[in-house]
């Protein structure tokens, strides 16, 4: 029972991790709202499904799906920059427009990819428990690569500008960075990630649905809040950021999967999501000060006595992320 819950959580939760990462990028790093991710999740799924049906290599199909999402992000950024539509509104509009685009791409509301070659095919023979375990291992490997690449990216000069830009765009500009360029980049990366997650999702579940993105933004926000609550990442703690994303996404799925396993009907899941979100937000307010106090005590203990130690040569030590 317990391990069934865990496997279900991994298989259905891991494809969401890229989406949650994309939402974290815009919501927490850029401190902005972009609803396009819902549309690009379905778009990525659809483009990947069409690719699979056309006999494309499943990795290639995934890449095309992700690229489609990035283009959607690019369009949203231009709506904001050129037409000066507020980002929240631009995202809502794009989300709606992408429904039609997705439907057009598939030519039908739901498209089955059952029996087609997927990224899982080499590792999965017949459906069942073992197949689920194999799939979650493959997914875990892919998601790990995505998270590591993303963390490394955040450490680059461009990634650093991105991390500074959300809170303090004036500072970033006065240091010579084009803030508009960062907006375009963040929306392209975020929607590309979301679409990539959609591509993973359809290969895992064996079908694409034009509505598969609906509610994903708020679900992703819930996951981000959970992750932030548990790991308290800050702008310079890059490893914590990606850990918060994966932990948040999986715990969010765990709550939903457990609810299903305990016999709640599928229709109750939206209610559970809403409840999780409310509790996560409330917990931010109530628990955060308590947690912060705890953390301060911890860090005081870790700190050496006021006398500064002689600088230790630390050529390879990147950060003190823990």
């Amino acid at each position, binding site marked *: 029972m317990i391990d069934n819950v865990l496997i279900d959580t991994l298989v259905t939760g891991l494809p969401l991790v890229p989406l949650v990462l994309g939402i974290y990028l815009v919501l927490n790093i850029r401190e902005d709202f972009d609803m396009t991710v819902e549309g690009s999740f379905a778009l990525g799924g659809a483009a990947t499904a069409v690719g699979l049906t056309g006999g494309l290599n499943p990795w290639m199909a995934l890449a095309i799906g992700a690229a489609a999402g990035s283009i959607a992000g690019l369009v949203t950024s231009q709506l904001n920059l050129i037409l000066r539509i507020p980002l929240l509104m631009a995202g809502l509009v794009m989300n709606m427009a992408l429904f039609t685009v997705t439907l057009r791409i598939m030519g039908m509301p739901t498209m089955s990819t059952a029996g087609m070659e997927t990224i899982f095919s080499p590792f999965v023979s017949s459906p069942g428990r073992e197949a689920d375990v194999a799939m979650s291992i493959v997914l875990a490997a892919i998601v790990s690569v995505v998270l590591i690449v993303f963390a490394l*990216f955040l*450490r*680059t*000069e*461009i*990634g*650093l*500008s991105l*991390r*500074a830009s959300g*809170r*303090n765009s*004036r*500072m*970033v*500009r*006065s*240091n*010579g*960075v*084009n*803030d508009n360029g960062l907006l375009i980049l963040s929306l392209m990366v975020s929607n590309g990630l979301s679409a990539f997650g959609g591509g993973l999702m359809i290969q895992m579940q064996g079908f694409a649905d034009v509505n598969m993105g609906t509610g994903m933004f708020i679900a992703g926000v819930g996951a981000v809040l959970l992750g932030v609550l548990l790991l308290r990442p*800050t*702008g*310079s703690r890059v490893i914590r950021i990606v850990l918060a994303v994966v932990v948040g996404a999986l715990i969010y799925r765990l709550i939903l999967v457990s609810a299903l396993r305990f016999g709640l009907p599928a229709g109750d899941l939206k209610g559970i999501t809403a409840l999780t979100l409310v509790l996560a937000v409330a917990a931010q307010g109530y628990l955060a000060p308590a947690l912060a106090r705890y953390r301060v005590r911890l860090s005081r203990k870790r700190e050496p006595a006021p006398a*500064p*130690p002689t*600088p230790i040569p630390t*050529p390879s030590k*990147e*950060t*003190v992320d823990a």
Partner: protein
Amino acid sequence: MHEPMLALENIRLVYNRGRADEVTALDHLDLALDPGEFVTVVGSNGAGKSSTVQIISGAQRPTKGRVRVKGRDVTAWPDYRRASMVARVFDDPRVGSAPDLSIEDNLALAMSRGRRRTLRFSTNATRRNRMRDELSRLGLGLEDRLHDPMGLLSAGQRQSITMIMAGLATPDVLLLDEHLAALDPATAARVLELTADLVAEMGCTTLMITHNMEHALRLGSRMLVMSRGRVIADVPQARKQHMEAAHVVDLMVGAGDELTDRILIPELQTEGAM
């Protein structure tokens, strides 16, 4: 004839144009600064000092007139493009630094100022050594706290770091807009010392706005007095050396400006800044 480092030509700046609350912040402003010149700027509230800085940094486009740096017309350049030549320290240390990022990340961001950002890592061993060297000159022990978030530091510590940041990628023009305003007298004195050292070291053209008459007279090689969007007095070093703070205040009052308690003259200062 040599080229001025920075030239403002017949600048006019109007805020909220065509609206009821239209304000002419700068009018017929001409200014030429030579390479390496250190100019202090005084003037009562609303005189247009910050507006001048905004025009030079590119944060505001002039309604009329030209801005030249090193002879190049940069009037149409956005602020981030000018950052390769112009560095700026804000009056509020919170604006000049990112509070949730570590000291190291803040310094790394400033180290790449004016260069194209790449996919290279923002910090490496060489850069980190340079950061420690620069921080150790502050004598605040910050060189051992590279990983602490900037937000944990006091206003004085943060402003000291933003001064260091402004100098990391040596600018041609350095703009300081009341950068000591948020600091207590002792800290202000320390950061002022650091300012003088850095400016002397880099030899960059510097514009320092202050409400402290003593600072304005003691530092720099030239002093400008502004009033109602214009420069009403341009005091060269020879005259500045022998000038009294009260005389500067007379100049401002003569221009019809009201004085506020933000204008500090030495006789009125209770806690001597120096």
